[in-house]
């Protein structure tokens, strides 16, 4: 697959080459990325496990969503910034490997899954908020756990593909 010139320019930019030539910058940013990703996955899992009826079943699902999702979005922002910096250091190389592209394709699916949940099942949350989750909630929670696990697998595979 041909890599557009934009990514080669990014990789050769002062920011990109500074990160790739430093001995400590990449591991340090990577550490921030791992902590951010762990926070994203962990907080999403708390909500997903409630949606499939495995954990926090005595808490209203709506309360969990309101308590945890702001942390998810804050951690996601940190993951995007740290991931963006890592990407800049070897942009053209990353774009040429399959697990990297697959990771973002799966993230798009996770986004669609989340949107469908917010626009459909969550609108009728009052009907199942206190008790057994609706079938739509269980499907959304199960899919989310599966997709985010696949994103981690792809992300880890990226490190072995360069």
């Amino acid at each position, binding site marked *: 697959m041909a890599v557009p010139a934009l990514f080669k320019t990014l990789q050769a930019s002062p920011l990109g080459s500074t990160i790739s030539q430093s001995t400590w910058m990449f591991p340090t940013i990577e*550490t921030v990325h791992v902590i951010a990703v762990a926070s994203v996955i962990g907080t999403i899992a708390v909500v997903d496990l409630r949606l499939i009826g495995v954990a926090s079943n005595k808490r209203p699902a709506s309360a969990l969503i309101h308590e945890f999702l702001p*942390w998810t979005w804050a951690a996601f922002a940190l993951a995007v910034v740290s991931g963006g910096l890592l990407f800049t250091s070897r942009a053209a190389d990353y774009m040429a490997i399959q697990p990297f592209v697959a990771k973002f394709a799966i993230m798009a699916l996770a986004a669609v899954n989340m949107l469908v949940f917010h626009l459909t099942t969550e609108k009728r949350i009052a009907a199942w908020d206190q008790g057994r989750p609706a079938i739509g909630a269980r499907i959304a929670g199960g899919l989310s756990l599966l997709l985010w696990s696949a994103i981690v697998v792809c992300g*880890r595979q990226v490190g072995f593909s360069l």
Partner: protein
Amino acid sequence: MNNFLDAVGATPLSQLLQNVSWLIPLIQSAHILALSLVFVSAAVVDLRILGVAGGKQTLPSLTQRFLPWVGWGVLVLLVSGLLLMVAEPRRALLNPLFQIKMAALLAAAATTWLIAARAADARGGWADPERRGVAKLVALGSLLLWLVIIALGRWIAYGP
């Protein structure tokens, strides 16, 4: 020590892990997923004690809900971590960062156990943690220890 590490590296299990290229990344992925659950579960309790989040719920209700996930999660981390060590015996055991990581893990386990025990103690426990300086210190220590453990885990890959 070197003879022992070479012997571990020569076992059929180690050979299998080294020769099937997708096994190590997959075990590492399981390790990351488990640490995500452990870190967030511990952080929920720590942030409640520190008064940053979860103020509507009592500390005992949160420790009962979330700390079992820390215990079971650490078990998954130990098993997956042990497999990774069998796969590459020289990578971790001789690395000082790994040794510090294990010491930090012991300390984090101690803080988790202390928080669980004090929250469960109805008389003089930490049911009202905002007013307890010691509780906040332990919670802050727990949070920092888990962050250090994750950071060291990543730096082992770049270690001496």
